[in-house]
């Protein structure tokens, strides 16, 4: 499984990357949404899933999600945020987020979500 993790907190990125790689999950990281969108555009074979922060400088996670869905409609995108917000949860789900999760998150919980998300991407559309 190959996942893309998007977060502007570099410490968080490297922590998650280390933990996921420890569990044999291939990880690519981006510290802003516009780089992430570019990666989604050019990655072949495509990512199995994306985990993206919502609050980031520049393009935010919701906009990033919107663009990713235009490029790859079946790509599962999980929003992972430290800032619980009802409107973001609703907007995110409406834009087609696979799930809306809150930091801090147990690594096992994230892996279960990623595996489930990867299955969706593999389903016939």
């Amino acid at each position, binding site marked *: 499984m190959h996942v893309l993790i998007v977060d502007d907190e570099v410490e968080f990125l490297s922590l998650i990357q280390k933990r996921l790689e420890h569990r044999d999950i291939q990880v690519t990281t981006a510290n802003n949404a516009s780089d992430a969108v570019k990666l989604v555009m050019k990655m072949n074979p495509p990512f199995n899933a994306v985990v993206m922060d919502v609050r980031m400088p520049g393009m935010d996670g919701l906009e990033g999600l919107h663009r990713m869905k235009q490029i790859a409609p079946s790509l599962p995108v999980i929003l992972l945020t430290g800032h619980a917000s009802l409107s973001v*949860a*609703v907007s995110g*789900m409406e834009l087609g987020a696979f799930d809306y999760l809150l930091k801090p998150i147990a690594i096992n919980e994230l892996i279960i979500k990623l595996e*489930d998300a990867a299955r969706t991407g593999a*389903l*016939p559309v």
Partner: protein
Amino acid sequence: MSLFDGIKRFFGGSSPAVVDEAAEALRLQMQARCLHFRRLLAANKAALEIMADIEERMTPKAKGGYRPFDMTYVRSAAARSVAAVFQMINNLNALSDRAYEDLKPAFSRIARNIDKHLGYVPPSHEGPLVLPLSEIRASDVSLVGGKMAQLGEVANHVNLPVPDGFAVTAAGYNLFMAVNNLQESIDLRIQQTDSSDLKSLLELSHAIQQRIYMAVVPQELARAFEEALEPLRVRYGKDLRLALRSSAVDEDVKDASFAGQFSTELSIEANDALDVWREIIASKYSVAAMSYRFTRGILDDSVPMCVGVLVMVDAVAGGVAYSQNPTPAPEVAGGQPHIVINAVHGLPKPVVDGSFSPDMFRCSRAFPPVLLDTQRGNQTWRLRNDPEQGLVSLDLTEAEQAQPALRPEQACAVARMALMLEEYYGAAQDVEWAITADGGIVLLQSRALKTAQPVEEEQSNAEQEEAQRHLRTNLPLLAQGGVVASAGVGLGSAFVARRERDILSFPRGGVLVVEQAQPYWATLLPRAAALVCEAGGTAGHLASVAREYGLPALFGISHATTVLDGKEVTVDTQARAVYDGLYEDIVPPAPAHNPMASSPVYAALESIVPFIVPLNLLDPESEHFAPAYCETLHDITRFCHEKAVSLLFDQEDSTSSKTYGKQLKVGKKLQYWIMDMADGFKKPVTGSTVELDNIQCQPLLALWEGMTSVPWEGPPSIDASGFMSVVMESTMKPQLETMAENAMQQKNFFIIDRNYVNLQARFGYHFCTVDANVTENPHENYVSFQFKGGAASAERRITRAHMVARVLEAQGFRCDVKSDALFAIAEGRDQHASLRRVAVLGHLLLHTRQIDMVMNRPGMVQRIEEKLLAETTMIMERGAA
């Protein structure tokens, strides 16, 4: 997970059926449908868990009190439940070719309602950055905080002497926070921290305080500060030393004392004052202060930290006076109300810090007051303001120790001041004061006295007799005496905390035992069953917080830290006794005291509950069982679940059941339908029924074994009446009677593959779910069980959930009971151990229905529990080597 492995095997496995294109298309469709169904179930579980958790926070349990929460919890519960329900809607629509798009308007309406109640705007606090004391009035409380507003009012209207000085206002604080972009980053960090976890809270406190220490004081504020300081420099010259006192704005919460939560720094040089101001701002984020706000439901950004900068008083004595004894004391002044004064030699700080027991004076409330009696404390040192060295601690000479901190006429003068303040404010006051070298009294602080919980003072003869009357002489006594800082009975394991770092090892529910009543122990009070201190008066900060939390507390118990350490104890303040052992029967537990009530955080959760938790959609046959009638998130989950189950299993549906749903036959046809995803049947089934001996799904067979073995007072009826229908007999809701008649009610559904079983069983008007995956690889194995609701009364449902949880825990399940909802799981066990646990669930499933009928009989709960425990243990032992 195994479902997908199963599906893979089905499509690519070693013995694939010869499939034509139509069959292949159908299977693909089924694969997607099952995936959506499982996802809907997962979202349903998540949503119900959040709702159960919310319910539990709103209705505290009698035992263990209630669990406090912060605004992060409220926002996150709202956001997560909304996201989960949206996922259910999406998956239901995916299952039904978008037949339920009309759920979305209902969903949006509910989400909007929730959102509307979460919009909190912190007050703005416009005004000058600093304000001289001479300009402060009581009405400035939102600008300078309670402490400074009262002091200004007294200085300017009551004509009592107060120290010279000024206040740095909330506007000054807000400017500092804004320029350094602190509030947003603090909010984010708080959101990401579990405030109920002390270790996380410690890390959070450290990180925030570091940021504040490093933050820059804006020039505008620094200039205003210096301009306010200048007249004091001129007036007091080189001897100028300052006291910086926190004065938090607490306008949102009634009764929040913030006692001792924030710093007061004494004897500060003028040149250091601005740096110390920043330290006091940082003290807003001490562990004790954050824990207090969390426990009381106080929002971080609703408490701007104002600071009083006051000229030090060179006190020869000082302390705290209560203008009224808050509880009747029949032995004093013939039971008349009186004034209570706690006093020490030197600066008054040790009285509120609880460093040692102060002297105590009681005076009449007559004009002029008369000294009624004096109780000596155990002071051995005093604090002094030294213009050269700052704050110094000096040992008392023997002659000084022999003298009470106040002469009788001084005590009466303090008492008179307390009465004047009470008269001015029209309410009993808690007054901090100091006596200067020339004999004058200076007021340092005055606030309304809290009388919510009884405060009793030093033990008089009559009180001793009263305590003696309550003493249980048949119980082993570890300690007796002291004073009651907060009334009640608490029991648990005694834990002696000596250093601040012991905070991390304190066991939840323990009895906290400390030498001195230092304010930082307040962090542990929400987690403690009782508090015992060797020293400290009832006027101290720790005593105030104990009373706010309704925590039983005894102060002045000599040698408590050596006598009680590690023992299981019962603290009974009525008898002023600590018994060796746990005695739950001493006093019936008082209703849980909720320090969050009336807080903005509690109000926020309370305001969104009506849109999340209530269930209005009860009867699937009713015309009101429709999206337009969904008023809460719970209604939507109920609707989605009902429709999803129908879509997948309903006989009328052409895609699913004709091909995949098979009715179980054991001799005769039973009300169980089985959908086999892959390899669950030994031989292909062409008809509409499947025989039990044609099933090779191990978890299903284990579940069946549990359901049909160890009969309970006669064989359980697993026939067409449906195994949960007995619950209906005790129903109090008329809708349920109707539902019992409807055919859907009586069907129970299994989804299986060779290693997986999912059972959807009706349980009153809720579902009960068993979900288990059992393979040869322990890492993939889990056995989970979930139920909530039912037709019995709430009390019985909760009792039942706890009882079933205890039985399951004894069999190695990890259980979580929230209100009447039970979530149980056993993971990572080997195949045999997992299958045994599936059988245990089968047994409980079937017998839980009988529990409801007999639970109302006294003594039955224990009997049933013992019986279930014995039976499930027998099931667990079956097949063991």
